[in-house]
């Protein structure tokens, strides 16, 4: 049994989600090949070789993979797919974009966002915003799977797997990348942060969000997140959204400020180790999942909390 894992990277370094995805592959068992497809991606490939559990790194370095479009990557993966029992990618916007295309071209189902491996053909995945967990078995020859990164601890480094260069696939896509607007931040990445401070509509404005939550996040060394309502209202960019249809996070500490705790928000954070909620409404559903709830006005308590942290 050999598993192909598709690496998510920015040409220089692997995204941390790749490390969790390799961990899921380790749980399935067998040889693990890590595919790094990119343009001038030698640095990412070198890092890939250090990951524990990886038996071989496959590098495809060609200009057509600079934009990481689903069309080009899926064509490449399908061309390289012969002989693999499983094809895995992280359940990030990257993996969710590419992998269903791969599955359809192979005429197999995709198993989305697995949270546990029961056996080589049986996996657990959340449905209905995580209100139910389904155990599903695949009869397909190749199992195409996206992995919920918070459910698998990242593999360590220290390995030195062989690196093999592969040829690019015939270019099929007519898609052009016109540009990217990436959110710049000195803070930890939301998906990999140990502590997250998250704000909702209760903050009232983007100005309040930044004025109140940034100093708190600075003290805690935390990443910043948000509810959908806060993103829709333009307090913060879309990539801050935590939830069923945003990012799924599971930090050591999640501080929810002015967030009511709708099902869709809980879906993205209820596996956090410790949850703190600050909300002035004692009946807010967020308190049903919070380890420590503070019923209070956030405009008073957040600055107090920030100064109490010294």
């Amino acid at each position, binding site marked *: 049994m050999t598993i192909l894992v598709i690496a998510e990277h920015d040409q220089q370094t692997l995204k941390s989600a790749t490390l969790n995805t390799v961990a899921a592959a380790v749980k399935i068992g067998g040889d693990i090949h890590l595919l790094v497809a990119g343009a001038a991606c030698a640095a990412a490939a070198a890092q890939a070789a250090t990951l524990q559990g990886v038996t071989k790194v496959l590098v495809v370095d060609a200009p057509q993979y600079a934009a990481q479009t689903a069309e080009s990557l899926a064509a490449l993966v399908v061309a390289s797919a012969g002989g693999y029992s499983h094809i895995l990618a992280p359940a990030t916007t*990257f993996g*969710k974009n590419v992998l*269903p295309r791969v599955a359809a071209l192979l005429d197999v189902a995709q198993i989305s966002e697995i949270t546990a491996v029961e056996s080589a053909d049986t996996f657990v995945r959340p449905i209905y915003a995580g209100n139910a967990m389904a155990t599903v078995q695949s009869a397909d020859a190749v199992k195409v799977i996206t992995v919920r990164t918070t459910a698998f601890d990242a593999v360590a480094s220290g390995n030195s797997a062989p690196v093999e260069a592969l040829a690019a696939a015939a270019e099929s896509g007519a898609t052009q990348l016109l540009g990217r607007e990436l959110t710049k931040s000195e803070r930890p990445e939301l998906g990999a942060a140990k502590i997250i401070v998250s704000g909702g509509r209760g903050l009232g404005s983007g100005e309040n969000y930044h004025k109140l939550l940034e100093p708190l996040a600075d003290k805690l060394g935390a990443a910043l997140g948000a509810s959908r309502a806060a993103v829709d209202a333009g307090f913060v960019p879309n990539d801050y959204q935590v939830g069923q249809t945003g990012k799924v996070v599971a930090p050591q500490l999640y501080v929810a400020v002015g967030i009511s705790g709708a099902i869709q928000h809980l879906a993205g954070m209820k596996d956090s180790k410790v949850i703190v909620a600050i909300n002035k409404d004692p009946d807010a559903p967020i308190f049903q999942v919070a380890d420590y709830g503070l019923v209070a006005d956030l405009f008073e308590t957040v600055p107090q909390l920030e100064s109490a942290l010294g």
Partner: protein
Amino acid sequence: MKILVPVKRVVDYNVKVRVKADGSGVDLANVKMSMNPFDEIAVEEAVRLKEAGIASEVVAVSCGPAACQETLRTAMAIGADRGILVETDVELQPLAVAKLLKALCDKEQPQLVVCGKQAIDDDANQTGQMLAALAGWPQATFASKVVVAEGKATVTREIDGGLETLQFPLPAVVTTDLRLNEPRYATLPNIMKAKKKPLDTVKPEDLAVDVAPRLKTLKVVEPAKRSAGVKVADVAELVNKLKNEAKVI
């Protein structure tokens, strides 16, 4: 230009589903059903393209049991011109839906398919991408802005790090994210008008598509319960608990 919009009938987003005691699935008896919220956004976007004179016809498609007619009527009340029901009682998985949609695309020849990014019941996030693959078309998932001009689409996508903009020739598949638009409420006159719009029914066999499920659900259970914690009196108690009890700061 014709636009095809696949709309799924799902449990309403306000409902917190319950797992059946025998572990066979979730309890759907007497549960409110609605159009998948992302599909409402998709219909709205297609109707806006029509109102802007860019699209000529908006066709809504739903695959599933007869009750999906309701979902199609909702789409038509928002402004879709007609509906197609692919009727089956078989449990449909995304690959099967994508194949049905591909067969309909062969018949209807739309220039654009606008899907939701994700159905909020199976949370699969697959169908649009699969359809694009089967049709050999470009795709733009998680769209927050769509511009169509001169046979091309320019789409801004919500990605984990921020936004990216792609441009590609039509035909193509776009899947909607939450911030693409705010769907209108269907007015009573439009709901009445929708009742008179054409609604065709076909069967998967008519489209020569094998819809047999590929994944077997062995069991469905409740997620691990989180026990509600404690309320703290003030910030000092909170900090003390975080430091000395939870030991997370």
